[in-house]
């Protein structure tokens, strides 16, 4: 009864509630945009990082002389295949970490932060998310990828190179000797952030340049199935591998890895790191940004609540005779309070839904803007565009929070409305 009465009142009083509705809708739209954009940015970073850091979970081999090497990658992969569930893809990689690799073309050169030798045929499905300005991932599959390289847009722009051009790659072997190779650009991927100072070539080609066997590896890239708990998967991998070889405890950050290595190694030891561990510093930045955003939103919601409080006071005053009539007809005080609070809750729901639609539209518009000119945005965008993700559970939580906030704001005036005596109410002129 209260519900239908509240709904009726809401519809009849819609002009009075319009301002509150707009404020709530705006607030919810902002919440939606901020949480959607943050989730999208994080998702983009995670996808890029998975390609850059060797999958959702990376296994890197370290030797006592501090070189990076996995002496028997086949055995390691076999152990994982046999004993660990939840894995979608396992692939060997050779990562050149020395930061002295350079690409030369047209009189220009650019240093590469890392070179990544990939088994493209094994990892092709995982790399499909790579956005290309020109060329494609398919050009690196099979024999087509022999002596080919994928370079970033940053590198291609600086070198003024395009797909099909032959560029010179310079690096040093494990003993420090200079080596070079002529590689053909097979694809230019759209990346201008720190993930863009990397080149991707066939594992076998990179190993040959470094003087290593064709199937050598420094890292194993592991991709988990959709929805799998990566922390749990890393623990399972650790348990499986530690039965067969030396493994550090699952590392939660790069500083953990440094600490583990600083104590010296007696034998080749594997280091297992999840994507979150690799991204610890970046997710800290995003978490800080999210915290600040939510703080700003909290302030906004508080302001809206104050507005609702004041508006409701006016509403209650303007509906004094109506309240008096309802009380005179037998409506109890708690019912009056419940009526007003219910109206507020319904208003919050309706306005929040509108706000959600506006927010999603806002995210879509935001996604169509090219932020490529902003260097700091490069890491969080794909080809300059911001992705977004509206999480159902987060949205439900935000909706609940908004409803509760509005109800709290409306409660004070609603209580005052309940306290109105029918006789006094009938005596007013409004």
């Amino acid at each position: 009864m209260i519900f239908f009465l509240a709904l009726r009142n809401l519809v009849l009083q819609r002009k009075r509630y319009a301002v509150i509705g707009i404020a709530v809708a705006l607030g919810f739209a902002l919440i939606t945009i901020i949480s959607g954009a943050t989730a999208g940015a994080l998702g983009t970073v995670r996808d890029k990082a998975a390609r850059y850091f060797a999958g959702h979970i990376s296994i890197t081999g370290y030797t006592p002389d501090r070189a990076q090497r996995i002496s028997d990658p086949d055995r390691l992969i076999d152990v994982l295949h046999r004993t660990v569930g939840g894995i979608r893809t396992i692939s060997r990689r050779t990562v050149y970490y020395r930061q002295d690799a350079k690409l030369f073309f047209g009189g220009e050169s650019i240093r590469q932060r890392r070179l990544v030798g990939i088994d493209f045929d094994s990892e092709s499905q995982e790399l499909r998310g790579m956005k290309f300005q020109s060329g494609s991932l398919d050009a690196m599959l099979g024999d087509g990828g022999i002596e080919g390289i994928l370079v970033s847009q940053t590198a291609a722009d600086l070198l003024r190179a395009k797909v099909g051009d032959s560029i010179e790659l310079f690096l040093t072997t494990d003993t420090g000797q200079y080596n070079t190779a002529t590689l053909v650009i097979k694809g230019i991927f759209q990346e201008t952030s720190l993930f863009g100072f990397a080149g991707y070539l066939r594992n076998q080609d990179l190993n040959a340049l470094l003087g290593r066997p064709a199937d050598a590896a420094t890292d194993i890239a592991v991709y988990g199935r959709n929805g799998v708990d990566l922390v749990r998967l890393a623990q399972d991998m650790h348990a499986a591998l530690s039965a067969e070889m030396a493994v550090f405890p699952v590392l939660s950050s790069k500083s953990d890895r440094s600490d583990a290595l600083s104590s010296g190694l007696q034998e080749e030891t594997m280091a297992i790191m999840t994507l979150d561990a690799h991204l610890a510093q970046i997710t800290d930045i995003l978490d800080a940004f999210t915290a600040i955003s939510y703080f700003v939103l909290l302030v906004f919601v508080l302001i809206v609540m104050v507005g609702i409080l004041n508006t409701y006071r006016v509403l209650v005053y303007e509906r004094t005779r109506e309240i008096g009539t309802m009380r005179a007809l037998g409506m109890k005080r708690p019912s009056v309070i419940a009526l007003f609070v219910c109206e507020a809750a319904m208003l919050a729901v309706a306005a929040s839904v509108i706000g959600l639609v506006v927010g999603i539209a806002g995210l879509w518009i935001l996604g169509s803007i090219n932020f490529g000119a902003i260097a700091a945005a490069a890491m969080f965008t794909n080809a300059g565009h911001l992705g977004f993700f509206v999480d159902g559970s987060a949205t439900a939580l935000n909706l609940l929070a908004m409803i509760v906030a509005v109800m709290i704001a409306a409660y004070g005036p609603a209580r005052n409305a309940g306290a109105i005596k029918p006789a006094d109410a009938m005596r007013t002129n409004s």
Partner: protein
Amino acid sequence: MKKTYTLAMLSMMLAAMTVWPQGMTSGTSLLKRVDSLVSFVDTDVSAEYRIDKRDPGGSTSTTVAAMFRRDRTNQFLILILEPIADKGKGYLKEGDNLWLYDPVSKSFTFTSAKERFQNSSFRNSDFNRFNFSEDYRISSTTREQLGKFDCSVLDLSANNDRVSFPRVKLWISEEGLVRKMEDYSLSGQLMRTTAIPSYQKLGDRWLPLTMVIIDNLKFRTIAGKIEYERTTVTVSKPSLKRLPDSTYTKEYLEKVSR
């Protein structure tokens, strides 16, 4: 007939066995001579190096540096004098360790002798003396006229994996001075060409007067012509004055950088 043929073959083999090690021996001693003519193991050597880098397409940059070298202990100290922005920066080599000093942060950073000096084709290790006889073996020897120089051309392969260039080709004039050098990568690609057209005599040894280094990896085609990054090194104010041991220390570098 068969006997004659066998005797002829044996004679040829004997001749080859006699000539080949002699050729190699003379090449090896030539390498040792090359190294000794530019080494100053009994004293210190100092000079001012002017390094002009020209990118393909025209932009240039110049660095002037003072170099102090002690070959006996494999040490050198380099102090950058120009440009103003880099004045006071320095390098200190002690054995296999090379330190870069930054006067702004007053800190030393461990760097590599293999790094380019001030982003030019002249590498930090190029301030060192030659050491071909220890690090390389001769793969082949020929003769070639290089301008006015009648040269022995030695094709060298590294005999250890510590050297940066696995293969080097030297053009050595009759005086035993390297006039041209080609440095190759492990894959056999020509990376760098160095011409040393003139030397200056210091006592009974020599120091390059000018060097022109072409970076064969950095080039551009301009108006149909290939232009390489070119670094010209001019060495002036040479001196064999013995320097105090304290010259080759971090403290000295900090002091002179102020």
